[in-house]
């Protein structure tokens, strides 16, 4: 398993506050990885760095077989290179229908001119319906995304990620605000996605993490505190002190 994404010695400072401190992280393809850690540990900031939203002060972020640096690429270029992201707060286009949200996300040429002349072919239509049924929204294809429930918006955003067909998925707190059954379905979606690609899931809910049944990275104060199986890291005294024992 070769490495798909590799961060080494990454640090970020916000107004003198070190949100990420000499962080190193690596993930291969395919792999499912959970990232846990207390509030303010830097989990979201880590995703911001990988997706180009935040530029680190030092360190390297290397991507893919050809080992390109992500630091010189724009957010859109990084996304086109194959990194998809789900935000902590669900962000879908509320003014547009479920089908339109998925259509915009479908992996197609992103240039303005080809988008201008693009029209959905039957195959695209089928793909949109497939995705919608995966995320249990097939009955809502023509519903405005704004009136979906919180959990449905989370799914729609996951569906948009899948539509992008990324090689790496970064998923920030996907189960927040979901009922038990919805959580289980989300677990299935993520596990299924991780069969063919790399998936990083940030989550606070330990039950959810346990069900993901994967390697866990614990972040604390901007660096990795422990890494390994869930049982391994939860047995770690430091982890208990800063996170579990709260």
């Amino acid at each position, binding site marked *: 398993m070769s490495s798909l994404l590799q961060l080494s010695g990454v640090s970020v400072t916000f107004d003198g506050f070190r949100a990420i401190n000499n962080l190193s992280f690596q993930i291969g393809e395919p792999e499912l990885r959970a990232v846990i850690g207390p509030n303010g540990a830097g989990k979201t900031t880590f995703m911001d760095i990988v997706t180009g939203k935040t530029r680190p002060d030092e360190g390297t972020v290397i991507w893919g077989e050809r080992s390109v640096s992500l630091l010189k690429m724009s957010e859109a270029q990084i*996304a086109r290179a194959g990194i998809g992201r789900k935000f902590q707060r669900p962000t879908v286009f509320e003014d547009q229908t479920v089908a339109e949200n998925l259509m*915009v996300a479908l992996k197609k040429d992103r240039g303005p001119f080809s*988008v201008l002349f693009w029209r959905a072919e039957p195959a695209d239509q089928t793909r949109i319906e497939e995705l919608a049924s995966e995320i249990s929204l097939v009955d809502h294809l023509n519903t405005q995304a704004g009136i979906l429930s919180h959990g449905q918006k989370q799914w729609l955003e996951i569906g948009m990620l899948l539509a992008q067909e990324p090689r790496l998925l970064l998923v920030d707190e996907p189960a927040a605000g979901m009922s038990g059954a919805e959580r289980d379905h989300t677990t299935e979606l993520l596990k299924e996605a991780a069969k063919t690609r790399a998936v990083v899931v940030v989550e606070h809910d330990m039950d959810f993490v346990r069900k993901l049944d994967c390697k866990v990275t614990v972040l604390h104060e901007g660096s990795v505190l422990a890494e390994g199986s869930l049982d391994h890291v939860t047995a770690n005294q430091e982890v208990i002190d800063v996170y579990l024992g709260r």
Partner: protein
Amino acid sequence: MERSFFARNPSVMIFIGMLGLFTLAITVMSEAYGTSAISTSLVKTLGMTLCLCLIALAMDLVWGYCGILSLGHFAFFGLGGYMIGMWIMYARTEAVIVTSLANAPLPPTPTELNDAIAVQIFGVVGGDSFPWMWAFSHSLTLQLMLVVLVPGLLALVFGWLAFRSRVTGVYLSILTQAMTLALSLYLFQNDTGLRGNNGLSGLQNIPGAEDIPQAVTSIWLLWASALALGLGYIAAAWIMSGKFGNVIRGIRDDEPRVRFLGYSVEGYKLFVFTVSAVIAGLAGALYYPQAGIINPDEIAPIASIYLAVWVAIGGRGRLYGAVIGAATVSLLSTWFTGGRAPDVNLGFYNIQWVDWWTVLLGLGFVLVTLFAPKGLGGLIDFVIRKDRA
């Protein structure tokens, strides 16, 4: 699924139908082709209103759909007007001078003729030769190309600089105001080549149509304006009806999300901004031959702010809303400020609409913003929903 564009967008057909009926009605009531029920000056006002509707449409594309509150669109409108005005002034003056020299013992050399035209045009600002920017003014074709190219290039350069540096929101609005202010101040100077505050005048006299009465040319220009508005409407509706429209509305509602989907937001904004500027330029090129005169005052920052008010009152984010807003507010404005609206005598105070119209407009703007955020166009939703119920 495979329904045609017009079937999927019934409002386009309705709009085109209404525009056609309106144009036909004006034509049969005109002095030139009909019953003379309406005056030529009213025909011109209505033709100009159609051009204002077209720039409102352009404004709606950038603001209503893409979320870029441009407060400088009249710069593009004015530039379109100047570009066509240069040809009209040149060709008209040339015709006049050729006629006046017809009886001279020796025919004038091309240089003499050129100098005579230049003196005629630029005498008012103390000039006697053509500035460089008039290089193409002898050619209608070239000036028509400039109508598209000059506003388009200005928008492209301005937009590239602004969007690339991720200037958004109120800062971008202020920059666009600065752009139009700078352009208007530049044009106010006598030595910049466009006759300073005199502007370009006599534009109602279309070269080659000297013998045709204004009553007739005004109807022709009305037709041209209606055609431009109709085509502009179809083009705008088509652009926004596909995935491109979804991306653009996505940028308006959640710019970072669009970026993380892999779309280069800057490129899309630049595209919409430039297309919108070109439409504005075309609208201006049709407007000023009906207005008869263009001067730098037309590009003053306040004009572009009014444009935003029209679109807000009409309802942004829907094309007919922009058209309704521009037509309603600009016609009301003409009526109130034209001195024909009766004064209201309150006994202790006499309300003169010429002064109080702006207050009324401001009040209307506030009321619409508070109570009908979707604008006048939103009322149409209301009617449609009632019909269905």
